[in-house]
């Protein structure tokens, strides 16, 4: 089941809502638009992981590694750090490295895709649980490297992080500066909203097309029963690698955008908890079902942040034990347990088409 609009006017309605949304939010304060921006990035991450987990059935618990790779790639290419560490490069780039958006996006996608295939390769023969643990291991290995590659050569600057990172520019206008349109002023966060929205829409488009194609069907066959899929002539190894690579590329692009948006990155942002949260978004939303995945991402990304903004009193009450990060973790944990117990197929799973066929056997 894909995304379908019952009529053209419904599509227009969505377009208007999505475009006007940040303008409404910004009147309440930029913090709210920030939440929307981060939610969009998480939607992108969830869509990418959905290709791996939802379509191909490969439980990847180390997905944040690709987010990190994209972020660090952009961070290195768009901050003074690399040139400071390798003065020889200064000669080539005397004005510093300032890459355009159109260069960064494909680079991040390709780098992440490459690593996706690389990290996926050893897992091809593994079954569900083992696959999960090994991918988790990979995610941790990447994080440890990010944290420790400040010696002997300082590549990542370790726990101190990389910064300041350039903002991206669109049509010559750097998104870190507000845009004055005369009748309305668009702050930086709103500009980023539109960029991220565009990327998310492209992602949805790609996923939707892939889902309803020969390759999408082959992925789902692998998810359902890999042995039977092979028996039908499907080359599971190549298709799994493709799923890993394609899913990873979404993560890489999201990571690069994250680095540009924040202006600063450090290994802390790329922990196991992030991987778990993205998995939760996909599974709790509705595995393999695009609307469900988007819903899951928005809920898990936005809700804790919204709570953070309104939960300050709660924090006072409990003497600092309930800070927003804790609240978010609690929420995710309870959601994971609760939803698996009550709605194991997710909040918005793919519909059953005809509910029951004549002569249905008891489930």
């Amino acid at each position, binding site marked *: 089941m894909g995304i379908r609009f019952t009529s053209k006017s419904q599509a227009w309605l969505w377009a208007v809502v999505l475009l006007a949304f940040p303008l409404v939010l910004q009147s309440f304060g930029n913090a709210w638009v920030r939440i929307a921006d981060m939610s969009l990035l998480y939607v992108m991450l969830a869509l990418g992981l959905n290709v791996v987990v939802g379509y191909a059935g490969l439980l990847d618990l180390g997905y944040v590694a690709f987010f990190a790779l994209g972020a660090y790639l952009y961070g290195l290419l768009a901050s003074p750090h690399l040139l400071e560490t390798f003065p020889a490069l200064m000669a080539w780039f005397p004005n510093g490295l300032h890459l355009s958006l159109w260069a960064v996006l494909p680079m991040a996608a390709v780098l992440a895709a490459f690593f996706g295939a690389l990290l996926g390769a050893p897992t091809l023969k593994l079954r569900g649980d083992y696959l999960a643990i090994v991918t*988790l291991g990979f995610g941790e290995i990447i994080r440890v490297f990010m944290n420790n590659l400040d010696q002997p050569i300082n590549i990542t600057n370790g726990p101190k992080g990389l910064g300041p990172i350039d903002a991206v520019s669109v049509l010559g206008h750097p998104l870190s500066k507000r845009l004055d349109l005369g009748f309305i002023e668009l702050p930086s966060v709103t500009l980023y909203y539109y960029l991220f929205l565009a990327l998310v829409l492209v992602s949805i488009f790609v996923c939707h097309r892939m889902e309803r194609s020969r390759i999408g069907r082959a992925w789902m066959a692998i998810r359902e029963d890999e042995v039977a899929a092979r028996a039908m002539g499907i080359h599971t190894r190549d298709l799994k690698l493709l799923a890993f690579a394609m899913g990873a590329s979404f993560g890489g692009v999201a990571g690069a955008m994250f680095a540009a948006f924040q202006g600063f990155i450090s290994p802390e942002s790329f922990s196991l908890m992030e991987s778990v949260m993205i998995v939760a978004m996909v599974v709790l939303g509705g*595995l393999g079902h695009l609307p469900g995945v988007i819903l899951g991402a928005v809920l898990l990304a936005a809700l804790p942040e919204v709570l953070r903004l309104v939960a300050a009193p709660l924090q006072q009450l409990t003497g600092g034990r309930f800070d927003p990060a804790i609240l978010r973790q609690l929420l995710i944990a309870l959601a994971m347990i609760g939803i698996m117990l009550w709605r194991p197929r997710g909040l918005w799973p793919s519909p059953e088409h005809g509910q029951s066929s004549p002569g249905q056997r008891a489930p």
Partner: protein
Amino acid sequence: MDIFLQQIINGLVIGSMYALVALGYTMVYGIINLINFAHGEVLMVGAITSWTAIGWMREASPDMPAPLVLLLAVVIACVVSAALNFAIEKIAYRPLRNAPKLAPLITAIGVSILLQTLAMIIWKPNYKPYPTLLPSEPMALAGAVITPTQVMILGVTAVSLAVLMWVVNATRLGRAMRATAENPRVAALMGVKPDTVISATFVMGAVLAAIAGVMWASNYGTVHHHMGFLPGLKAFTAAVFGGIGNLPGAVVGGLLLGLIESIGSGYIGALTGGLLGSQYTDIFAFLVLIAILTLRPSGLLGERVADRA
């Protein structure tokens, strides 16, 4: 040579703790094919509960002899952990026994995070010092040193293993567990209640993990809510290393992993010409995991199982 022996001792000590936790993983997996992702947190709960217990006892009767305090703390930790694991199995895993394969794994991850978060809330996120109850002067041993705490760890592990072996091999419950692990349906037909056996498995695993938790805290001197995560993952690696579902394998895997970590972290600087240092120790476990799953997925002591169509 002295350094080498020292690292062997350290490796065996850490390896013993991995072995205790690995047994819990391997027993549960052998019976219900589930990686209990929250098992590392059971270690943490055991450790942190014992910390609280020791605090109470010290306050209530400061003259209690240290070994007694430690013993009582271990007992309390075991009871709490066992009850917790029993409850987790009953509430979160049992309803999902026939669910699609992804569901129990997600729930287990959720339980793991829940336990960590609750521990963070109840005990606050700071690192808490764990009291050293045993005398701390190291004793010389053939050129290396070993502390009484380390001796205790080795001893407690040996005793625990012996008791476990006795339970599994010589009691009715143990027979029931082995039967269920081999063939649950036939075992049920023979009158073994699967729920009872599974609960017992979780309880026993929890006891071992709690003991490991107290040992871990004694060895490293701190407790905090996140302390169970890495040991849990490494212990799982050890279980796979030795052959998942295989009890002696878990012990062998645990000890070997401890040795690999210890010796590896000692020599990694020399081996890589200074490029990598001991801060990379944690990834050894993952590298071992990847290697074993790629080269010999059934583990060192495991059997090869073909996938029947």
